[in-house]
Structures are given as structure tokens and as C-alpha cells.
């Protein structure tokens, strides 16, 4: 049963990528809707399976590692697989209506979309360092292709910046993998973690260079400069995918590597450095979001800020009691989930607003509150989660991080959470102020179809409701992991 689920989960995106390459836009859209439903059902079934039976290792095609591919299916991985299915399906459905089928290049959205999905699933489930690299590269190539969809010069420029930054990041990560393999003779995360019993200079350097590469790929300040142009210029559903899921993949790898290696290598300084960079990202990203003239750049800079919170995991999980570390891990996981839902909702809503007012500028939103309340409402609901107000998922995440930072005696991270929340409120209200400006009586706006407006609303409501169901969501993360091997 579970091997069928795994095969379906990994095979569907790749098969659909090839299938959609052969089809025209509308046919590919129809096929993709079927694929998304299938993927959603498989993810749900796997999640339920793991929630009931506990996690397992899975050897692809029955080939054992190190030459075969070993996948680690645990509570965290299936949670993210399910999150990907949810956000991916929402963005896919939105894109099917949002993109204009009459432009010939739009049909390439679908193969790239499925490639991205395949890469994301590969990263969540990978059990060894090298497959994480392959998964990350698959994601990067698909994501760059999606950014450039449309092919105007500014999009190409943003895509090239993104590609070069991502390539530096991947190669730095791969160099770290080479050093670790030479040191421990193992590629699996578990094997490397066991090998790193004591601090060794080579392993410490490897950890440092891997975290550097992954931080660039996750757009951590000051390596964030590629993100706002790329996420700002991409089509709205693409930006939603990139901000919601893609940057999280690099962070997920960094967190997994850190939790295996960080404590063993006594890398406290690295943890604090990453925490400081994360805090700077929160402040600088929010400040820039407050100053951007274009709506989508506001949302893109807000991503820079929200990613900063994730990196508080590193100082809060090192050299602290087990319970505090667990609290920090849970807080960061919730932040990943709530930001994925809220930010994709926000980008989709922003896309709808831009479609309606036919301009990318914030001032152009004047009068929107009167004639297009629904999209603005979704935008605001997503904003509530980004600000971290109860009962949203963002609130639950920040609450856990706050508790962890106070319990570990590192109260200064709590100040970052506070400042970030205030600045987030400021940039969301700035959009609201612009949209409540009164205009002349007649309705000058294009009204997008209702289904386009419903999708971000659903995502925003999920982000808002996450705080209420945080307990059951987090309980899956702590499921027993037997370490037994299932293979077909």
C-alpha cells in the first residue's frame, strides 16, 4: 500500500511534466487538474498512513543506498508534501485561469510547474545529501524557467540574477557534500550525523560552506538581492509558488543538515550569525516592503522579511535544553506552513488586484475597497497571518518562537519578533490606505472571474485557521520513526 503511494507520488509529477509538454495550453490545463487531484489524494493518503503507522525508509525501485535512492518518509516530510499539494494545486488552478492561453509560450507553464512539483517532493523526502542537491537543482531550473515565462528583457534579467545566485548556492552546497563524504564516507543524513561525534575542522568547514550556499538559495539577508526582482516580475501564480514553496526547500535542507551536524560540531557561532542575518532580514525586508512603489514588490520584500524568522531556528536549537529546541523547531515549522499559505494567498490576491486596476503601482489601488472587496479581503486576511495576530498560524508560530527565545535566555530574538510584526502591520495597512482612497462614482475596474478570487481566499482562510489546529498539525511531526525499510 505505502509503496504504491510513494511510487504514485514521485511518478505523477514527472509523468505529467512530459505529458503537458506535448499538449496545448487548454488540454494541458485539463490534464493538470486531474494530476493535481491525484497528487492531492496521494499526499493525503500518505499523510494518513504515516500518522497511523509511523515513518519509514523507502528504497526507490528496491535498490539499496548508497547506489540506490533512499527516501526518508517521516512526519515532517509528509506534512510538507501535503502542504506542497495544497499550495501547488491552488496556484495551478489560479494559473489555469490567470494566464492567457492565446500567448503561445504560456503553455510551457505546465511542464515547468510539474517539474517544480517533482523537485519539491524529492527534496522533502530525500534521505541523503546528494539527492537533496539534485532536488534543489531541479527546483532551481524549473523556477528560473517559470520566472522567465513571457520572455521580456526585465524578466530575463531577473531570471539570470536568480540563476547565477542559485548556482553559486548549489555549488557551495555540493562542495560541502564532497568534504563530508570524504570525512565520514557516508551521504545519508543519519550516517553523517552519527559520524560527526566530535568536532573536526573539515566537517565544520563543510557545514559552514553548505549553510552559506543554502542561505543564498533561501534569500537570507544579505544574499537576498536576487529575490525581489525575480518574485516581483514573475506572473502572480508563479510568484506565489516561488515565495510559498521554493525558498522553503533550501531552508528545509539547511535545517535538516544543521539539526544533524550543528550540535555535534559545536557550531554555536554559526548559529548566532545566521540568527543575526535572519533578524537583519526581518528588519530590512519589512522596511523595504514599506517603501516599494509596486504592489508585487511589497509582497516580494515581505518574503525576504518572513524568511528571516525561519533562520531564528539556528541559534534557538543549539546549546539549549531539548524541550526548548523542540519548541523552536515546531515554531519554525508552523512559520513555514503559515507563510507558505499566507504568502501564496497574498501573491494570488495581488495578481487579481493588478489584473483589476491594470497597473502594478500601489497608488492605482484607490477605490478598490469599494468595487473589489473580495480580493482585498483575501490580501488582508493573509496579512493578518504575516503580522502574527491571533488566531492565525503566524501567531502560533511566533508564540512558540517567543517562548523558545525566553526559555533559552536569548530574549533579544523576541525583540526581533516584535519589531517584525509591527513593520508587517505597517506595510499591510499601507496597501489598505491606498485602496480606501475615494475615486469618482463610476466603477473603472475590470472584475476578474469569481473563481480567481475564491482561490486566494481559501488559502488565506487556511493560514488564518492554522493557529486553531496547530496542535494536531504539530503532533504529526513528532510521530515515531521506526527506521524500518519498505521497498517494493
Amino acid at each position, binding site marked *: 500500500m505505502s509503496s504504491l503511494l510513494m511510487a504514485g507520488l514521485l511518478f505523477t509529477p514527472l509523468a505529467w511534466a512530459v505529458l503537458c509538454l506535448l499538449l496545448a495550453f487548454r488540454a494541458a490545463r485539463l490534464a493538470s487538474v486531474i494530476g493535481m487531484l491525484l497528487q492531492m489524494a496521494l499526499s493525503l493518503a500518505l499523510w494518513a498512513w504515516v500518522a497511523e503507522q509511523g515513518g519509514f525508509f523507502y528504497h526507490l525501485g528496491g535498490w539499496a543506498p*548508497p*547506489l540506490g535512492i533512499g527516501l526518508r518518509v517521516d512526519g515532517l516530510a509528509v506534512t510538507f508534501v501535503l502542504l506542497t499539494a495544497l499550495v501547488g494545486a491552488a496556484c495551478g488552478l489560479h494559473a489555469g485561469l490567470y494566464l492567457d492561453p492565446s500567448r503561445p509560450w504560456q503553455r510551457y507553464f505546465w511542464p515547468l510547474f510539474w517539474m517544480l512539483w517533482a523537485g519539491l517532493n524529492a527534496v522533502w523526502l530525500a534521505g541523503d545529501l*546528494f539527492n537533496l*542537491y*539534485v532536488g534543489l*537543482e531541479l527546483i*532551481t*531550473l524549473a523556477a*528560473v*524557467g517559470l520566472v*522567465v515565462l513571457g*520572455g*521580456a*528583457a*526585465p524578466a*530575463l*534579467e*531577473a*531570471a*539570470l*540574477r536568480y*540563476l*547565477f545566485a542559485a*548556482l*553559486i548556492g548549489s*555549488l557551495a552546497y*555540493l*562542495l560541502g*557534500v*564532497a*568534504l563530508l*563524504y*570524504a*570525512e565520514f*564516507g557516508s*551521504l545519508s543524513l543519519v550516517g553523517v550525523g552519527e559520524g560527526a561525534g566530535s568536532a573536526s575542522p573539515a566537517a565544520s568547514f563543510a557545514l559552514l560552506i553548505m549553510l552559506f550556499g543554502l542561505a543564498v538559495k533561501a534569500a537570507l539577508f544579505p544574499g537576498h*538581492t536576487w529575490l*525581489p*526582482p525575480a518574485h*516581483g*516580475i514573475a506572473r502572480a501564480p508563479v510568484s506565489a509558488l516561488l515565495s510559498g514553496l521554493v525558498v522553503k526547500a533550501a531552508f528545509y535542507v539547511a535545517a535538516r543538515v544543521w539539526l544533524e551536524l550543528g550540535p555535534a560540531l559545536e557550531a554555536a557561532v554559526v548559529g548566532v550569525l545566521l540568527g543575526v542575518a535572519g533578524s537583519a532580514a526581518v528588519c530590512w525586508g519589512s522596511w*523595504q516592503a514599506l517603501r516599494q512603489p509596486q504592489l508585487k*514588490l511589497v509582497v516580494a520584500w515581505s518574503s525576504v522579511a518572513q524568511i528571516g524568522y525561519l533562520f531564528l531556528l539556528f541559534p534557538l536549537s543549539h546549546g539549549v535544553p531539548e524541550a526548548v529546541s523542540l519548541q523552536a523547531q515546531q515554531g519554525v515549522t508552523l512559520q513555514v506552513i503559515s507563510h507558505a499559505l499566507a504568502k501564496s494567498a497574498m501573491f494570488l490576491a495581488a495578481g487579481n488586484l493588478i489584473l483589476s486596476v491594470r497597473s502594478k503601482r500601489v497608488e492605482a489601488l484607490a477605490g478598490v475597497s469599494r468595487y473589489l472587496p473580495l480580493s482585498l479581503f483575501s490580501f488582508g486576511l493573509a496579512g493578518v497571518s504575516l503580522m502574527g495576530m491571533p488566531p492565525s498560524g503566524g501567531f502560533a508560530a511566533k508564540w512558540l518562537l517567543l517562548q523558545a527565545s525566553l526559555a533559552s535566555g536569548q530574549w533579544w530574538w523576541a525583540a526581533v519578533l516584535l519589531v517584525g510584526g509591527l513593520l508587517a502591520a505597517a506595510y499591510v495597512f499601507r496597501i489598505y490606505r491606498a485602496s480606501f482612497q475615494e475615486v469618482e462614482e463610476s466603477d473603472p475596474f475590470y472584475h476578474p472571474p469569481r473563481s480567481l478570487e475564491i482561490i486566494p481566499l481559501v488559502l488565506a482562510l487556511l493560514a488564518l485557521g492554522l493557529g486553531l489546529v496547530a496542535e494536531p498539525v504539530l503532533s504529526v511531526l513528532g510521530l515515531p520513526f521506526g527506521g524500518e525499510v519498505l521497498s517494493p
Partner: protein
Amino acid sequence: MTSALLYVLAGALLCGGGLAGCLLVRHLLRRLLAFNLLGSGVFLLLVGLPAHRHGSDPVTHALVLTGIVVAVAATALALVLIRRYFHLTGRVSLPTGRQEDR
């Protein structure tokens, strides 16, 4: 001095040169070449370092084969983007210092 050590040193040299190129060179094609140098350096290290420490190892060869495929794909994508960018704008390097206000 074993041959594996020679690969390690060559790999380190290529990595250093490639990284310097990535950061310093502005011309897009040259920067892409620098990336490929860096990549080749990493691959050499990936094969050479474990061989130097523990003897020859088939796993690293399989890894590098996969790595080369990934590198070729990334290079092809970058080339297409650079070519298109040149056709549209006539520029061979990305403009500097204006990222913030776009």
C-alpha cells in the same frame, strides 16, 4: 604524492579560480564559464578527496555523472537566457546598482 592528491589540488585550484571568476567577471558568458570551472573543480574534489582518504570509490563516480548531467542542464538554460537577453537588449552583462528600484 598520489594521483588522487593531484586531483584534489587541481580541484581546489579550479574551485578558487571559478569562484573568483563568478564574483569578479561581469560578462555573462565568461561568468557562465567561471561557473563551469567551479563546477568541474567541485566534481574533481568529489572524486579525488574520498579516493585520497579511503581509496577508489564507485559511489563518487555515480554522483559526479549525475552532477555533470545537472551542470549541463543548468548551462544550457543559462545559455538560452543569455542569448535571448542579448537579442532583446544588446547587452552582454547585467546592469549594476539598479536592483533596488525595480
